[in-house]
């Protein structure tokens, strides 16, 4: 029986895998607690979850501040305006929470480096959860040096110099990656860390979402179109282009995860929903058009679904490239795609057998990977290694 403290940022794509891992740990009899921004996450955690708020004295709601930026600029702003401010403000509250809960192990999302710094300062065994494989790759000397500089500044304000390292965000004990090495490819070198690749979390823990299943007809090819929770409300152009293309493809049905206000413009073969039961829906479709968000990509590929990737920001261009290089996807330029181009790409997606074959090849590895259960076992194992604990 171990005491395990989870800390994750208030972002859906980071919370969902952690929920599944916590679920598996709880089922195995461990005691799980959460240190989170409770105003945003409380209602997404299990009703009986043991929650310590990180934001009791923090008035900010930590949304993504610049939803409109794209590409490398979003990476810079994610650090400067999101990750680092959150990290700095959570250090003292999290340290107090950790001293109070006295975990045997901490589980820290990779994009919540405040958690990593507290685990390092208190000398606790800890695991990093990496919800996008882009985070573990060396991208370019310039970008990598900039990232190290950002972490240097953060550490200097909190950790004694002897505990400062180049990449404090990666646990020296265990780094759990929700992807597989076959999808990751060999294009980029990896940052040095003790990785375990567990594939998509699989296990659930997500809340049930209503969906009009009867809308899907048996005799159509079906697509799920989603830009993920961060970019869904970015602008409507992309969805309007998709609807224009789909209007000319009546044998295809598509569910668009988009603002409900677009429903009035939708052709009869398009259903607009602002939230969907994504896993269940993926079981019903033939292909996916998405932003190459890491979770969506892994969930779709583990069902052998080929996809069109229209990356926008953050890690998405890197993940999109992994899908294309693996032969399981086609590229679409999010802000430039025209109805004619979209129609042609959808045609290719549904008519190119090699895309589905490569997706199915990746699916074998993704399905064989141990998912949340494997992650839970790694974490529980850390609790049995008292040598990892540095201070009393």
């Amino acid at each position, binding site marked *: 029986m171990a005491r395990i403290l989870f800390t994750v940022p208030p972002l859906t794509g980071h919370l969902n895998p952690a929920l599944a891992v916590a679920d598996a740990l709880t089922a195995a009899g461990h005691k799980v607690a959460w240190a989170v921004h409770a105003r945003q996450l409380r209602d997404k955690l299990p009703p009986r979850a043991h929650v310590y708020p990180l934001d009791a004295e923090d008035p900010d709601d930590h949304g993504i501040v610049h939803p409109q930026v*794209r*590409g*490398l*600029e979003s990476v*810079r702003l994610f650090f400067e305006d999101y990750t680092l401010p959150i990290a700095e403000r959570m250090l003292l509250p999290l340290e107090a929470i950790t001293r109070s809960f006295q975990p045997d192990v901490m589980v820290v999302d990779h994009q919540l480096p405040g958690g990593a710094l507290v685990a390092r300062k208190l000398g606790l065994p800890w695991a990093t959860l990496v919800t996008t494989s882009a985070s573990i790759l060396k991208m*370019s*000397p*310039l*970008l990598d040096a*900039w990232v190290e500089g950002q972490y240097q500044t953060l550490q200097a304000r909190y950790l004694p110099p002897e505990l400062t390292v180049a990449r404090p965000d990666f646990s020296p004990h265990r780094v759990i990656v929700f992807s597989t090495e076959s999808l990751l490819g060999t294009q980029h070198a990896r940052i040095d860390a003790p990785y375990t690749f567990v594939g998509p979390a699989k296990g659930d823990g997500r809340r049930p979402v209503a969906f009009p299943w009867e809308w899907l007809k048996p005799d159509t090819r079906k697509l799920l179109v989603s830009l993920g929770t961060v970019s869904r409300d970015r602008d409507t152009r992309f969805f309007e282009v998709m609807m224009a293309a789909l209007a000319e493809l009546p044998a295809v049905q598509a569910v668009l995860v988009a603002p409900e206000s677009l429903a009035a413009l939708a052709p009869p073969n398009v259903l607009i929903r602002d939230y969907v039961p994504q896993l269940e829906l993926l079981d019903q479709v033939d292909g996916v058009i998405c932003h190459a968000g890491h979770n969506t990509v892994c969930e779709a590929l583990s069902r052998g679904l080929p996809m069109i990737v229209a*990356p926008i920001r953050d890690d998405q*261009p890197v993940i*999109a*490239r992994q899908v294309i290089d693996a032969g399981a996807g086609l590229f679409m*330029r*999010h*802000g*430039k*795609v*025209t109805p*004619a*181009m979209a129609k042609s790409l959808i045609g290719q997606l549904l008519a190119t057998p090699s895309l589905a074959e490569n997706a199915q090849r990746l699916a074998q590895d993704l399905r064989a990977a141990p998912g949340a259960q494997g992650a839970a076992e790694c974490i529980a194992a850390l609790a049995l290694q008292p040598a990892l604990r540095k201070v009393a």
Partner: protein
Amino acid sequence: MSSPHQEQTLALVIDHIRNTVNEDWITDYDIERGTRFNDDLELESIEFVKIAEALQAHYGTRLAIIDWLSGKSIHELIGLSVGDLADYIAAATETASA
């Protein structure tokens, strides 16, 4: 004022961009000195590298685009415009041929 050499270089860079992207929208898209690779053209880094390689091949050893880029800050890289690249190439090729 930009010289004829600068204007020619800019036109050549723009040609390479249109050929590399090779999608319907770019045919009519106005590409100017101030057009940014990230924000305006939505070029992925792999595409930018292809354009750089094509230009490098065109001009040969007179250019060192990758070295030039590695001296930039992340802010400069994010805001990199077509004119920035064309000006670098124009300067490098003018010095070399002078």
